[in-house]
């Protein structure tokens, strides 16, 4: 029993890392533009599917992964330029529908390019399971964990140590004030979209060897990432990471101990309960409304 629970925890942390990366992307974009980007899951799908297609075309895996990430970043920049910028100042509902429209559009493009079939990447370093205590760990899970820790560390260092990161942070606090001290807000916006598209794509490439990918694969991942960002208190990048890992753990435990069919319901029930008791997430700021 204990071994089994340990196994669920391993699975949970792996899946949670992905939710964390996607949630981080949500937080970055929300910070920079007050927009919740519902196309975030589609970046994950595009990263995975592009890498699979490029590998199939004969490119070596590292090159395919790099090219796929760059492709997703380009899509992120295009999304910002042609869907978000023209709608500046729109209401919450309007921006939600615009990004959902973008998500449906990107799914439609993927459907035309790659059809409805499921595809997978080969594991990065074989698929011989490693025995760890009583549990088995796939080498790919270690890749997921390692890269996630690295990326989260990089994002943290970026915000805390670099001028560019601090400028981006300034935009999230007060856009007008940031503009006044000479920060080019428009460039920062694009940076945020590019960054979170890249994070999403890397998440997609990491998970593609474990779960199969298809044109629809981004939908649930995107929603879980959004949940992670909300549970962590939207706009709090490290809160989103914590929220993602927490969500992944709960989901894996729920799937293992209660019912695998209900795992999505368990995850969202947890989100609802968090919101009922903490209406601004676990690590969110309490905001006072100006009357």
């Amino acid at each position, binding site marked *: 029993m204990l071994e089994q629970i340990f196994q669920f925890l391993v699975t949970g942390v792996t899946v949670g890392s992905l939710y964390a990366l996607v949630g981080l992307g949500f937080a970055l974009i929300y910070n920079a533009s007050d927009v919740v980007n519902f196309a975030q899951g589609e970046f994950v799908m595009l990263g995975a599917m592009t890498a699979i297609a490029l590998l199939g075309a004969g490119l070596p895996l590292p090159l395919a992964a790099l090219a796929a990430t760059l492709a997703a970043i380009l899509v992120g920049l295009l999304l910002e330029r042609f869907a978000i910028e023209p709608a500046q100042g*729109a209401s919450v509902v309007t921006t939600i529908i615009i990004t959902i*429209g973008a998500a449906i559009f990107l799914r439609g493009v993927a459907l035309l390019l790659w059809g409805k079939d499921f595809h997978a990447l080969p594991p990065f370093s074989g698929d011989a399971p490693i025995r760890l205590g009583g549990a088995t760990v796939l080498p790919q899970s270690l890749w997921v964990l390692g890269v996630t820790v690295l990326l989260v560390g990089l994002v943290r260092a970026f915000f805390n140590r670099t001028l560019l990161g601090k400028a981006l942070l300034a935009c999230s606090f007060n856009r007008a004030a940031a503009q006044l001290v000479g920060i080019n807000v428009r460039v920062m916006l694009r940076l945020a979209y590019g960054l979170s598209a890249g994070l999403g794509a890397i998440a997609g490439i990491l998970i593609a060897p474990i779960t199969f990918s298809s044109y629809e694969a981004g939908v649930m991942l995107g929603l879980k990432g959004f949940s992670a960002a909300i549970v962590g208190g939207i706009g709090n990048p490290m809160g989103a990471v914590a929220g993602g890992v927490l969500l992944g753990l709960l989901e894996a435990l729920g799937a293992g101990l209660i019912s695998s069919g209900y795992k999505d319901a368990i995850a969202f029930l947890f989100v609802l309960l968090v919101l009922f008791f903490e209406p601004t997430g676990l690590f969110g700021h309490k905001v006072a409304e100006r009357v």
Partner: protein
Amino acid sequence: MRLAGFYVFAAVVALLPVLFPTNYFVTVVGASAGLHVILAVGLNLLMGYAGQISLGHAAFFGMGAYASAILTTRFGWYSLLALATGLLVAGTVAWLLARPILRLRGHYLAMATLGFGIIVHVVMVQATRWTGGPDGLAGVPPLNLLGWTVEGDLPWYGVIMAAMLLTVWLSLNLVDSQVGRALRAVHGSEFAAQMMGIDIGRAKTQVFVVSALFAAFAGSLFAHQQAFVSPDSFNLIVSVELVTMVVLGGMASTFGAACGAIALTLLNEWLVVFEDYEMLIHGALLMAVMIFMPQGLFVGLSQGARRLWAMVRPKS
């Protein structure tokens, strides 16, 4: 004269099948549009008037549909009794959920309603013993109205349109009642509304329950009309489409929501011919309309027409 628009609308709805009794777009697509109007008008009460978003409204639609389908096929209940039970279930769930959920704001509210919708959808897929699982429930008996069995396109058009006109009429009256004025005050500023002595929690709960009832009502009719229910008819995409109908209609206008529902139903009907391109075009249109006409299709089009007229008008 307050209801003049309603009488014109009712007259058009009544005249259409007389003029085109065999037209597919009138009887079949029209009936489907009628159900969407019920859903959109109900959601509009919540979104347009009370200013609360719901990304999980398909759940209430589904509750009505599954209540009718399960109770009539598995237990042989009389269809109107099953419909009433569906209303009771959806209304109770909405009432229980309203206080904790409508306390949330903006994206947190979007998340909570979205999560609720997904949970209900997962239950529809997983509770196979009751719902038939992903394959759904077939063989839902036709609606029986006190002895009259509703079968065929034209009778269904009549029943759905009567139901639709009833909900539109209710909505128009509700909006102009004391409750409606309280809701608009809540939308304007919750704080100010509270200062004027409005019980915000109660006002929001009432409107949430009413919009859930409208959705469940449409769901029951849908189950009988299609004689089949499956989880696909009540997923997140459907919830998003309902929100889109309300926003397309310009929010805070009953007829706007109705027009948004009709416009989107027709659009979906036409897009089917594009087959594999349907999804791509659907997404692109959704983005374009919201970017260029954030005030909705009708304000957007009338502004566009006015601008066009200003350009071509003969200068005196």
